């Protein structure tokens, strides 16, 4: 068996934060020890509420931020110590907000061609050809080349961002909520485009979303994050059909409509997302958990296999499986 394309090894990222000039410095743990693998050619869906550390993890995978502890390997090589040019051929981002991810002062052609320019690839004419090819690949026309971002719709901008990410032919693309800032009608188009390009170019995606339905559609593996930790991981079929963690069940209940004959959905999430500066003791989910017992506040459950490849960090994971 070949090594996974992306290996996230016990990654921890802490930020020192202070509220005012004289306030004491405090530590915020945005990512609290995440290990995940992404086999080549697959899509790893990462879900979790806003603020649980998904984007922080994404920046670390992209090599744009250094982990406090742990490391990220892409193709067996540690991203943090790669040269920027080498790193950028391995992994590229597609960000959430196409309104802020494109430099408003550059034309579409300049934006998509910029990676080639930075890498000193080709003559201006060759670069123009490559850009034209990419424009076609993402469903834009040659007449968009001279446009500026302000003249494009959200969906078109996201296509430009995708073209920029793919022009260097990276093996891995980190999509950080690539559709959440778009109109609902456009979301499906961009998802389809991403999936089509993955098949065509043999890409692997780390696909981040707070929307389980989206992840279910695209992912070949799912990891659910809560407050900086992965609480459940497995293939989408299993995780979404028989979730082993109460948090996953609550997330599912919030997207699925109750249907007759399917029984009552789990209760919606009680309480609010905890303050990451003061994480709850034990299992971080226990204050909101319908199953919580005193043990949950005292002892943090490990990410144990519930069955085979399906893992969940809950004292009652095995129970839920039955």
């Amino acid at each position, binding site marked *: 068996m070949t090594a996974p394309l992306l290996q996230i090894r016990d990654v921890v990222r802490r930020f020192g934060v202070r509220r005012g000039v004289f306030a004491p410095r405090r530590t915020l743990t945005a990512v609290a020890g995440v290990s995940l693998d992404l086999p080549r050619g697959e899509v790893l869906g990462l879900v979790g509420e806003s603020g649980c550390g998904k984007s922080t993890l994404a920046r670390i995978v992209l090599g744009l931020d250094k982990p406090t502890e742990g490391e990220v390997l892409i193709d067996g090589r540690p991203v943090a110590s790669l040269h*920027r040019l080498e790193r950028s051929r391995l992994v590229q981002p597609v960000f959430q907000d196409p309104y802020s991810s494109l430099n408003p002062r550059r034309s579409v052609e300049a934006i998509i061609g910029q990676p080639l320019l930075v890498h000193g690839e080709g003559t201006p004419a060759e670069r123009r050809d490559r850009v034209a090819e990419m424009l076609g690949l993402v*469903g834009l026309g040659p007449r*968009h080349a001279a446009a500026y971002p302000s003249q494009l719709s959200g969906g078109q901008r996201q296509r430009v961002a995708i073209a920029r990410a793919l022009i260097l032919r990276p093996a891995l693309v980190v999509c950080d909520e690539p559709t959440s800032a778009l109109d609902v009608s456009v979301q499906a188009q961009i998802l389809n485009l991403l999936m089509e390009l993955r098949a065509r170019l043999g890409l692997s995606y780390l696909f981040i979303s707070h929307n389980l339905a989206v992840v279910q559609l695209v992912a070949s593996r799912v990891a659910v994050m809560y407050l900086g930790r992965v609480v459940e991981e497995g293939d989408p079929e299993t995780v979404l059909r028989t979730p082993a963690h109460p948090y996953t069940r609550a997330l599912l209940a919030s997207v699925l409509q109750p249907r007759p004959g399917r029984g009552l959905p789990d209760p919606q999430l009680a309480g609010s997302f905890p303050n990451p500066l003061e994480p709850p003791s034990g299992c971080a989910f226990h204050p909101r958990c319908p199953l919580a017992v005193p043990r949950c506040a005292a002892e943090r459950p490990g990410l144990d296999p519930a069955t085979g490849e399906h893992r969940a960090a809950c004292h009652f994971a095995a129970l839920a499986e039955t």
Partner: protein
Amino acid sequence: MSVTAPSLPAVRRRPGRWLGNPGFVVAAVVLGAILLMAVLAPLVAPFDPYEQVLDRRMLPPGFVDAERASPAHLLGTDNLGRDYLSRLIYGARISLLIGFFTMLVSGVIGTVLGVAAGYFGGRVDAVVSFLVTTRLSLPVVMVALAVVAVVGGSLQVVVLVLGLLLWDRFAVVMRSATMQLRGLDYVLAARAIGSSTPRILLTELLPNLASSLVVVASYEMAQAILLEAALSFLGLGVQPPLPSWGLMVAEAREFMLFEPWMIVLPGIAICVLVLAINLLGDGIRDATAPEGRA
């Protein structure tokens, strides 16, 4: 491919954004005229600004006193019989030169410090913030006066002293503007595609800082012109017989009660130039700011 792109919305007409602002248009015309006058001074000025004609001293302009006025001297003559209009025209050269070069010196210092502080943060930011605080604790006019008093006044000294004193606003504005841009995804994307830090600063950040830069630059240029006038007025700036507007105000001071026009004319010139520069800066900012979410 599943989707063909819909047609582009019409390109926003850029000239409309420039010409739609009457303040900007007036300022541009006025400033253009002053600039042209300064550059073409030898051709435009009716007399040599240094030529003294002692039997034609303090002739008022025609609109002040038609009887005493001489038709040759449109704006009269000063106490040494030099043509006032010619001196005002040559004075524009001095104001513009000092304003421009001071702005250049302070702009380079302040922008480098501010962008570095905003982009790198941490220790760099702490050092720059300390420098700004130090600079702000120095009273500009006092320091300028002291230095000029010691070194002696000249065009170069005034430019250098003011340039080394007026960079704080550049630094503060560039710092906060850079901090805002630094967190934007297009800067992250630029790092992700492998751009070097200098390339990011010069090609991603600076073009987007340009509109705030223009506003500060215009403000500081106007400020430098005012300060030069003040220094010259106090006798510590540009030295006579150079026709600086500030110097002209100073020289007219003695005759203020009997010939108030002598002080009013260079005063108006300073006001008009400063106002025009500020309006131009605002206009450029409004017209070049990138459009937000359309």
